[in-house]
């Protein structure tokens, strides 16, 4: 009998109590002298059931959660002892290897998060056992041009939210005659409630590294930076560990895997500024300056880090690369729509039954994601809207749930694909309040450089505050619309340009709530509730 017990030990698992569960599990296994390997893995994504334990015996996996320390004993009894008393179906998640009995997992298509929850993120052997660094070896046998072509053919678009085709971006920097070139991974996941990148790094760090090394080979970069949030200490330490392993393995440093390629990586921890997600601000931050955006052009591909050509991709984009190289661009493109290939991960939060990290093919209707995977709103409430893309995004009302997940389709609704934040709002939420919440976030995070963003968002916020307090003025709605244009069109960088989106979309779909607020204020302090849900 070969038995493995996997326990999710990501940041979110730990927040749910996974450390206590691990200690209980470890001592019980030792005490009973069970022939069991306990594997600490990343997160499977099912945040609503964490801590999650996967018991695999002879290839047959059973998934449980939440597994509190007191549930360890009955669980071990069930599989290795006297029998099934004490294991409740309430905390049984799935008995099938393909998880088809649990739609939250069964309906997902996992590419970048494929190994999250399966392998030990500290184990290079685990990664190698699952075709790890095979894509790199394959890529090194191709020419850099062929690698770029494969990425072009895969129809991969930037997962940071704007959706610029990655292959085109790579081609731009590839063609620059200036050296050195820098490759930067934006792991400064700043949207409130978003944790896709954290989960990917904590579950499968080498997948990101492998993608970066391939990218460096393709674009001709000799040095790479991972700009990571300082608030992600576990992810950062896992990454450091993985980088050291990759160096020892020969996948980083001089003459990578004997190919002659030189490339090395440095982690830069950000200071937690939302604006550092903006490419130019991020580069200034790496240079040791204050993270402030500058005008583009020049684009990073012309003059980026320290004035040299630089390419910035986000974690999910880079984590997709090895799969594209290994399985072929056609396979990847085939997963998505005509214009956009592959899958997209979302952090599903808010008033949803089954919250967590989900990865679905581009082209999946929102309805499927919210209802089939997420199980609809919790506690019998009705869906009101979905807020996508965090503070830069917008809301999509319940009647547009047939919209498919696609950059252009989503943009048409006024929302954006975003980096993957998806907050589900039920009928108890005041949309004015929701707009206020996100706007206060952007106002706090404005770098202060340009007046529309620094002062304009403040004035918008003041208006929303007045409306919510029932002290709205007749001119407020007009001023709000006017400010949406000035801030959206007039701001210097993406942060300011997208800051009005939550207000614009709520004004578009829920103008009646603004009118009601103008007359009588909002009822109840929903903001506190929303904030609590989003950051849960």
């Amino acid at each position, binding site marked *: 009998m070969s038995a493995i017990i996997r326990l999710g030990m990501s940041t979110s698992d730990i927040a749910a109590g996974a450390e206590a569960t691990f200690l209980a599990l470890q001592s019980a296994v030792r005490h009973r002298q069970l022939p069991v390997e306990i594997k600490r893995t990343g997160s499977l994504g099912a945040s609503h059931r964490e801590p999650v334990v996967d018991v695999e015996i002879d290839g047959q996996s059973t998934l449980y959660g939440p597994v509190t320390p007191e549930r360890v004993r009955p669980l071990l009894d069930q599989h290795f002892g006297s029998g099934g008393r004490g294991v409740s179906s309430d905390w049984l998640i799935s008995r099938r290897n393909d998880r088809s009995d649990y739609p939250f997992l069964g309906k997902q298509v996992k590419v970048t998060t494929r190994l999250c929850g399966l392998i030990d993120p500290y184990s290079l052997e685990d990664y190698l056992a699952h075709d790890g660094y095979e894509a790199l070896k394959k890529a090194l046998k191709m020419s850099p041009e062929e690698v770029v072509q494969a990425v072009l053919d895969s129809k991969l678009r930037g997962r940071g939210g704007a959706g610029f085709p990655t292959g085109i971006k790579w081609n731009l920097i590839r063609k620059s005659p200036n050296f050195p070139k820098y490759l930067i991974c934006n792991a400064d996941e700043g949207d409130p409630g978003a944790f896709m990148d954290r989960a990917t790094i904590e579950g499968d760090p080498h997948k990101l590294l492998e993608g970066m090394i391939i990218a460096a080979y393709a674009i001709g970069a000799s040095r790479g930076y991972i700009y990571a949030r300082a608030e992600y200490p576990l992810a950062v330490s896992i990454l450091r560990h993985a980088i050291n392993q990759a160096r020892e393995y020969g996948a980083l440093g001089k003459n990578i895997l004997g190919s002659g390629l030189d490339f090395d990586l440095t982690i830069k921890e950000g200071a937690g500024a939302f604006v550092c997600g903006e490419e130019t601000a991020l580069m200034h931050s790496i240079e040791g300056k204050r993270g402030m955006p500058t005008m583009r052009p020049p684009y990073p591909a012309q003059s980026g880090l320290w004035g040299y050509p630089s390419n910035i991709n986000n974690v999910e984009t880079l984590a997709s690369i090895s799969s594209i190289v290994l399985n072929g661009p056609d396979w990847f493109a085939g997963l998505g729509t005509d214009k956009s290939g592959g899958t997209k991960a979302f952090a599903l939060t808010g008033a949803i039954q089954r919250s967590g990290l989900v990865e679905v093919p581009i082209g999946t209707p929102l309805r499927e994601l919210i209802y089939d995977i997420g199980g609809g709103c919790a506690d019998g409430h009705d869906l009101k809207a979905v807020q996508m893309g965090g503070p830069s995004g917008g809301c999509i009302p319940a009647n547009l749930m047939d919209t498919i997940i696609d950059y252009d389709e989503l943009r048409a609704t006024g929302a954006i694909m975003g980096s993957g934040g998806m907050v589900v709002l039920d009928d108890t939420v005041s949309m004015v309040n929701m707009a206020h919440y996100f706007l206060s976030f952007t106002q706090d995070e404005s770098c*202060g450089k340009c007046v529309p963003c620094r002062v304009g968002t403040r004035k918008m916020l003041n208006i929303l505050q007045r409306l919510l307090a029932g002290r709205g003025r007749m001119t407020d709605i007009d001023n709000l619309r006017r400010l949406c244009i000035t801030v959206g069109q007039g701001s210097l960088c993406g942060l300011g340009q997208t800051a009005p989106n939550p207000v614009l979309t709520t004004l578009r779909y829920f103008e009646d709530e603004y009118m009601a607020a103008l007359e009588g204020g909002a009822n109840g302090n929903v903001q506190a509730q929303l904030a609590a849900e989003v950051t849960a």
Partner: protein
Amino acid sequence: MIKLTIDGKTVHANPGDHVLDVALENGIDIPHLCHHKDLFPSGSCRMCLVQVEGAPRPQTSCGMTVQDGMVIDTKTGAIEAMRRDIVDLFVSDHPLNCVICDKNGSCDLQDNAYRYNIQETSFDFELSRPKYYDDNPFYVRDYQYCIMCGKCVRVCDEIVGANAIDFSGRGFTSIISTPFEVPLAESDCVFCGNCVQICPTAALLPRSKIGKGREWEMERRQTICGYCGVGCTVEYALKDGKIIYAQGTPDGAVNGEFLCVKGRFGWDFNSSPDRLTEPLIRKDLAYELGLTDEPWEMPKTSALKGKPKLGNFIPVSWEQAIDITATKLAGIVQKHGPDAVVGLTSARCTNEENYLFQKFMRAGVGTNNVDHCARL
């Protein structure tokens, strides 16, 4: 040469030129608050936005390089409305205290409020950074008037290289500050005051100017700085014959608008009470010449010790002073020959004076014993 169209006018430009500069050179006025010809474009004030044909959103003209065939409209209704809104936002956290403001009459924000006929903000007025620093004798920082254009930060970085200040904080209350808000004297500030010079509002003002008069009452006179050999042009603003403050001027042949701490703030020695105002004769010589009855002997203590001792001298008229000097020099030349006289001309006097001095030594006294501190 690149050809483009701005507001229907065909203009020519060099590759790499920025649209705003080209427009201004061609007499097309695009409002701007954070632009300076000697600084890299920053795009922070958003006033110079223009509509470029084919672009989805307004473009920042200060940072946009010209492209052949570009068609630009600088004054569409939407753009002008946006500019008006931007000024409206600027004055929503900038007190319009113009009547009592020392910048009144030379304030760029005031000019733009005038241009867009903004008497007060249409949004709610709210001070964002009511901080006032008076921590040095050179200039004061009154951040309630700051519009965060960042010109001070850029001049400190791109021209002076001191990097004493930067943006600090986030959001509405963000501010320009030294690291950890330490007093300027503890920062890397070199007190050149170039930030004061290019500040568009009253956020940075020379201390000597505050309360000393309105801009339009001041007379302006230019001359060359008397300190080092760079030869900066300095413009002095005077009221009632007194210097109120000094600044650079765009037509400075070598320095443009920029100066250093000595050139900008070091002029007050000129009105020091220590200035010599009448010719003096040392008392022992005065006694010898019968100008005083008291005998006196030069003390042995070093001239380096203590304050300058005017008491060792008595005042005489110019006629007396010149006569005594000429008589003495002539006497020595007649007795010891011309080479017994030496002269030090001055690296701080004019060409005309140096010329005349050495001419006197050579053609008057008759010696080449003339030198100055060129080597020192």
